[in-house]
């Protein structure tokens, strides 16, 4: 069972996929590129959840399935668990990873640190944030695909207000 995958290859593949969809296929339509990338993630999550839940008893409620995503599923993907899980007990869950692996290689231009008031740098910052968020549609899709396959339809979005920490917000559809 224990097959290994080169981490740098996965990083490279992810970066290339995002850049291909954003700069070549849908250069002028970032929403469309985002949707395509999310759909790929959905399929991956769908298949992975089938495999990783093989030896487990069935989940009795949503929280158990979310916990599975936080612990076992995340460990399989990123060799670490989700660091913090919050919920409002009304179908919204916030999964926070303090050092998200797929963002650890992304550098934000250091010149942005000083002179925030200037217009060009603010623009550059928003551009960098947009490029970073493009890389998060894939993991969002993975989470959504995994949960949907476990019988929990939901919407997943990502929040990167304090890098390199990253939160995934899961809203379960009633």
């Amino acid at each position, binding site marked *: 069972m224990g097959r290994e995958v080169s981490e740098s290859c996965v990083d490279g593949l992810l970066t290339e996929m995002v850049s291909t969809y954003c700069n070549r296929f849908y250069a002028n339509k970032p929403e469309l590129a985002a949707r395509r990338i999310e759909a790929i993630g959905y*399929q991956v999550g769908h*298949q992975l*959840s089938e495999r990783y839940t093989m030896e487990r*008893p*069935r989940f*009795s409620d949503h929280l158990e399935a979310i916990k599975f995503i936080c612990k076992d599923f995340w460990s399989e993907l990123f060799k670490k668990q989700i660091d913090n899980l919050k919920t409002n007990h009304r179908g919204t869950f916030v999964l926070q990873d303090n050092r998200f692996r797929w963002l650890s290689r992304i550098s934000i231009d250091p010149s942005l640190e000083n002179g925030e008031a200037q217009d060009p740098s603010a623009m550059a910052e928003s551009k960098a944030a947009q490029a970073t968020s493009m890389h998060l549609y894939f993991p969002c899709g993975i989470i959504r695909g995994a949960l949907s396959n476990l019988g929990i339809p939901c919407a997943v979005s990502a929040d990167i207000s304090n890098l390199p920490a990253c939160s995934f917000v899961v809203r379960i559809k009633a």
Partner: protein
Amino acid sequence: MIVCVAVVGHQNNPLYIQSFTEEDDALKLHHIVHCSLDVVDERVNNPKKSGPTLNETFLGLLYPTENYKVYGYLTNTKVKFILVTTDLDVRDADVRNFFRRFHAAYVDAVSNPFHIPGKKITSKTFSERVSAIVKSFGLSSAG
């Protein structure tokens, strides 16, 4: 001897059904599989009757008929596996082992990027693997 195995999706849509008899009784076997779906639903919705281990994927003997025994298995993703056998003296461990191997084959089949989720499994490799598992089940229970 196993006479029929089936994979049924979460909306009770058939994904794969294969009988292993010489005679022309596929229709009868399909009927048996169809009937067993109600029993699966009942087991899942009334967990009290399903025995001590709650929420286990293996559902055990669903119902015996005159000539057949029907076993069920429900994955975390709400996909049902049904097994129909003519052996009247079957060990639970054998059936569990069968379902575990069957599940592994199923997971490999649906992980194929060309497989469309929710559609019938048409993979030849999957059929061959299932046939091999079915054959070896007969051997292990005889020995």
